[in-house]
């Protein structure tokens, strides 16, 4: 699980061009949207693409995204339960 969390942080930084952010700056329980990392709606689309392309998980219900993308913890939990 720790490896998955680190991998996710690296992917978030790379895919979302977070130029001044390091893996160490993203705490496992830091909110990704709103305060915390401050991601926005375009980033949410990028994360949906990331889930599908890298982990084979298709989000069919957009409402689910609010829960899944809360933190790195919630993303890694969801991926480990659903990855194909």
């Amino acid at each position: 699980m720790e490896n998955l969390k680190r991998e996710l942080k690296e992917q978030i930084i790379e895919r979302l061009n977070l130029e001044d952010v390091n893996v160490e700056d993203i705490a496992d329980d830091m909110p990704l949207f709103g305060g915390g990392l401050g991601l926005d709606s375009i980033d949410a689309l990028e994360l949906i693409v990331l889930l599908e392309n890298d982990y084979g998980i298709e989000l069919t219900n957009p409402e689910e995204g609010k829960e899944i993308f809360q933190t790195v913890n919630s993303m890694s939990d969801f991926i480990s339960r659903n990855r194909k």
Partner: protein
Amino acid sequence: MYINACSTISHQNSFQNENWINELVPLDIKSELITPDYKEFIAPAALRRMSKIIRMSLACSKDCIQQSGTETPDAIIVGTGLGCLADTEKFLNNTLTLTGLIPPTSFIQSTHNTIAGQISLELKNHNYNITHTQNSLSFEHALIDAILCLNEEDSNVLVGAADEAIPLLDELAKQFGLDEITHKLTSGASFFMLSNNKTEASKAQLVDSYTVGLNNSSPGDIIDDFLKRNGLTIGDIDNVLSNTFGTVSEFEIMDTFNATPVKPIDECSGYYFTNSAFGMHLGVEMLAQNSSKRILLYNTLNNSNIGLTLLQSLEA
């Protein structure tokens, strides 16, 4: 109409430097774009996904807002020849190399109107917002639109032009056999605040702009007609600023204008589809420094297109 602010990012030290026209250096193979610290103009959260063309355009726009004191222009009008090339290339590469969903950011930001759109988002401006793309005449078309707006009900219009070079363009240029020194492909952005109101910030006047696409007529006749419709002859023009991609010889251009001095701008701007906007900023500063009364911008970057823009000093 008055030009109340000008801002250019180029291979010259032109950004926020009023004296830049006295520091011009011809470009060489090592010349690079001279950029400000974009974090002074754009929030880091927004900056991270912006390509060079968006960064340049936003910084110049905000500089114009600052210079002119006009926080809410009545229109935002942008000209671009090739648009957001870096994001277009990224998006096309993604479609060729990725399977599954295509990441949305490069697609969203690949369209030409991203530039004007991002400016309006940053300025929280909901007024007229449009992008003109007409090959080498993109900037002049944006200017003509701005003039029409100012002749109707608008008072202040933010108008500008930008293009960005990407390494693929250099590869293409090599395949066409273009020399990279005499035909250095560059990036650049120039923005202006045009206004019906003369203020302390006013630098010069924009009198008229005109374009001819796919021209078959003699350039001399077109220039004479353009000047005639403004009540002038070539003898009333103190300086001509010209850009050409080398398809029209300097001798031919000199011959067209007789005794009027012609200054080529390409050696200082490099080549991009909207480098006539660089020429307009150069012309405005020449007028503001009282070295000329009237300047004609003669755009023959693409020799089948002609763009003419007439500037005059505040006193003329």
